[in-house]
């Protein structure tokens, strides 16, 4: 069996974040294109087809520091090496759990990592959409030190040469959260349109992002303002009519965003419509009187 990238590809297998960023720095200084390998769900197929021929690969599986998740007083920190399977059962974050449960197939969930989702930054990505709604911060480390970047800034600017994503940080949940997505079949599909919604009962607001319509996961600000104003925050509930209105505003909001490239089978018109339906559905799941607050575990 040949080496994934070919015999000329250098393979680094660091055991610590320090070793990993040292390897990245060395490759950056040498001016060689380098790929990070974690779960390999994106990189390995690309290596097979030769679409990403790197000079060097930094394999991260041995970096145990990256595979840690934890809770502080106000935040949850999830290491870049944490897999979807690990998140799918995490009771501290029902939204991350709901998102992770519907990512790809069992095999993909067993391999795919948080860092991989940020590295690939697929604009339709499930985790990216949830993290957008959750206002996540991305933690990065290089030989020069560590920094935190807002997700939006990270998606705009990306990693600097020699930087490694070590973790993401999200606020601790303070209300129901959900993640809905649709695609081409009943299970194990890439997201066509998705919606992440988090209710914050402390700050009395709803955060909602739509994936698959705009060029990147899109916060629907008008709809969020409506929710903040009209939800009965003493009970954390809202009438069904408000869910419908929320969906309409979410659709209108995402329609106004710069669109993702045209999909020959699923015109923008449909995806906007679906975004509205999913947003209304997510809102109702988290805020209707009958069932709220609801645990995310599926019936």
């Amino acid at each position, binding site marked *: 069996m*040949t080496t994934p990238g070919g015999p000329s590809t250098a393979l680094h297998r660091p055991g610590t974040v320090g070793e990993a960023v040292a390897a990245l720095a060395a490759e950056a200084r040498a001016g060689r294109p380098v790929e990070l390998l974690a779960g390999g769900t994106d990189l390995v197929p690309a290596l097979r087809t030769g679409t990403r021929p790197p000079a060097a690969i930094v394999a991260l599986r041995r970096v145990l520091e990256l595979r840690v998740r934890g809770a502080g007083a106000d935040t949850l920190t999830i290491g870049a090496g944490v897999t979807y399977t690990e998140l799918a059962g995490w009771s501290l974050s029902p939204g991350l759990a709901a998102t992770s449960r519907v990512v790809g197939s069992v095999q993909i969930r067993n391999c795919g990592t948080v860092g991989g989702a940020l590295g690939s930054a697929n604009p339709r990505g499930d985790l990216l959409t949830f993290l957008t709604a959750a206002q996540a911060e991305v933690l990065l480390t290089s030989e020069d030190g560590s920094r935190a970047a807002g997700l939006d800034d990270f998606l705009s600017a990306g990693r600097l040469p020699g930087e490694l994503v070590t973790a993401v940080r999200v606020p601790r949940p303070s209300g129901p959260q959900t993640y809905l997505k649709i695609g081409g079949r009943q*299970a194990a599909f890439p997201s066509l349109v998705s919606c992440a919604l988090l209710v914050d009962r402390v700050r009395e607001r709803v955060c909602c992002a739509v994936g698959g319509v705009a060029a990147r996961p899109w916060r629907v600000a008008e709809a969020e303002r409506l929710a903040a104003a009209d939800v009965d925050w003493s009970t954390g509930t809202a009438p069904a009519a408000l869910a419908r209105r929320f969906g309409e505003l979410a659709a209108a909001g995402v329609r106004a965003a710069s669109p993702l490239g045209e999909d020959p089978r699923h015109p923008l018109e449909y995806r906007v419509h679906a975004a509205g339906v*999913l947003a209304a559905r997510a809102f109702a799941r988290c805020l209707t009187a009958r069932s709220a607050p609801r645990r995310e575990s599926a019936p």
Partner: protein
Amino acid sequence: MTGRARGVGGSVLRPDGLAKAGGTFVYAGDLSAPGMLHARTLRSPHPRARIRRVDTAAALRIPGVAAVVTAVDVPGVATYGLIVADQPVFAATETRYAGEPVAAVAAVDAPTARRALAAVEVEYEPLPPLVDPEVAAGPGAEPLHPDGNVFREITLRHGDPDAVGPVVVEDSYLVGMQDQAFLAPEAALVVPAADGGVDMWLATQWLHSDREQIAACLGLPEELVRLELAGVGGAFGGREDVTLQVHGALLARATGTPVRIAYDRVESFLGHPHRHPARMWFRHTATEAGDLVSVHARIIMDGGAYASSSPAVIANAVTHAAGPYRVPNARLDGLVVRTNNPPCGAMRGFGVPQVTIGHEAQMDRLADRLRMDPVGLRVRNALQPGDVLPTGQVLGPPLPAREAIEAVAARPLPAALTAASPVTARPGGRGAHADLARVRRGVGYALAYKNLLFSEGFDDSSTARARLELDADGRPVATIHSACAEVGQGFVTVAGQIARTELGVDEVVLRPADTGVGSAGSTSASRQTWMSGGAVRGACVAVVDRLLARVARRLGLPPEVVEAPRRALVITGGEIVGAETGTRLTLAEALAEGPVEAEHTFHHRRTTALDAHGQGDPHVAFAAAAHRAVVDVDLDLGLVRVVSMALAQDCGTVLNPLSLRGQVEGGTAQGLGLAVMEELVTVDGVVTNPTLHDYLLPTTADVPALDFVALTYPQPDAPYGVKGVGETPTCTATAAVLAAVRAAVGRDLRRVPVRPGDLVDLADPVDPLGGAPYLGNKAAWGQPGEMERG
């Protein structure tokens, strides 16, 4: 189990089943040879371009690159093809589809080969591609190939072409491009031989057709091109055409070294022909009582850049366009066109799934118009043996079409979705969390028939050899040699069953399928159990005759027994017994003086070509099937979940119930896939989704357990009374799911696969046919007089 229990009629397990399930089965892509080179293919990124220059020098300078071959290196015929040799081994001066091979390289490893591909310099001058078949066939369209842009046009006229009934339904339908998407991509191992020939191990559907085409392109006599079947991981028609065979052979001969040539998933999607996309217009007329009076249809299929099986596919589409119904008057026109889209060819169903989508949608509309039950309308019009088909062919028995539709209609319906059902049982699954109040159930039916074996006068014989002898331990063992390609359909199982039944032995060895024996024909057209099963049976019968005659001679039995030994002697329980002659000896004793061997070539009944009006006796036989689909649709999102599938199918005599079940379940799943998800999408001739990430196949979450009823009337002219079973359920599954979705959402559907956007109310809905109710380009049909709307 004894020979009898493991003979014909039993659910004998596949000999390769455990290895496949356990991951130890050796597929073509797993083969290797010491010192072998790795080959890869350079493909045109342009759907249509002039090739100004190809320079391989830089690629050849890369260390580890052994050879680069292009069109100038093809020593024999520059083109190949199943029916017409119109496809270049490598594009020389012009590329006609995005993905067309331009060069191939062999190197010490795959990454080096890949780097070499990037170093081959090809100077393209892109030309505007023709991707609309109606435009490509129209007047003034530039010929895309010296053979022109029309692969075949068929004009079928039956009865009174002007007869119409008082009740009329008409519309147009669009079918997208489905891919066979077999799971083991194309692969071959090619070893250059000392005699100047090549030995090749490959995954294919038809060894001898491959050999003929490879030998012609290599400029070698056929006997120097020796092929052996390697493990095949699915085919469904997609391995009927030559893909990498000639490239691998050229590289092996150029380097004098074994070459492994294999496609990755993307290349597999680009490398083989797909199912034809179709645009179809139908007009059905009937009496007020619900008897069909006439069917008019126009079918345009996009054949893509090269002919492949297009001429035969369009004949199937046209001759089956009216469905399994009594239609006294028909005007059925078909056209298959060359474009700069990817080539299309054989896929399970071979032109029939497309027209079934059309004729069954029409039957549902007609039932609505007549206020009749859709099952009742189909029962009323279903063909019966003795009826005359639109080709003028008289339908031979059996064809239980009416029974099939009645049988599925009688199956119990699945329970309704309730709040207690798991969320994964709702349309869209866990992620969509459909609102139960907005989920609507629909039930739909489809009935179809599909021709079996090759048609239009083709004598697609199959040859097999059988040998009966004693093994080293003195036990009788049968050896069967056939070139039949096992692609998953179960010939390896059924051939052993036939040999055990005919020869009365337990031990049967099936030799590898290779070109050392006569052609078995293609593993396609639902033909191998009938044709190669017939060949194996014939060879075994001849072996028995020879053995019994030898025994009769040795025992000094009367000459009339020696002449016709079966009248007096039988093989039973491992013994040769003659009640009248008092004979009783074991098979081992009978074989002690040496092996007995025979070869048999099986032919089906002759058919005829279609005449200028589409009349003739083109099809050997037919099989009918009916599906009932039950779906739930999320009315807000347009997502569909198939809840249940019931199938009643005309199967002939069942040789292996377990194998049969595998075929009908797979056929149903593949048809379901076309209905709701499987589509290879092209934009301006370029495939946009050539991965299993973007080309979705149904999973176990999408395919319900199949409620299956086998209708088992023996086919009189087939061995044991068998019928082919693999294709028929694919034809009906798509149409039944579509009918069920139509029933759920209450709107007529004109496009397959159905898209969620077609099922919901959008502010700005997209008409799949661009608003045109008819296939408009009259000139494309060559007979403007025939194209009037009325």
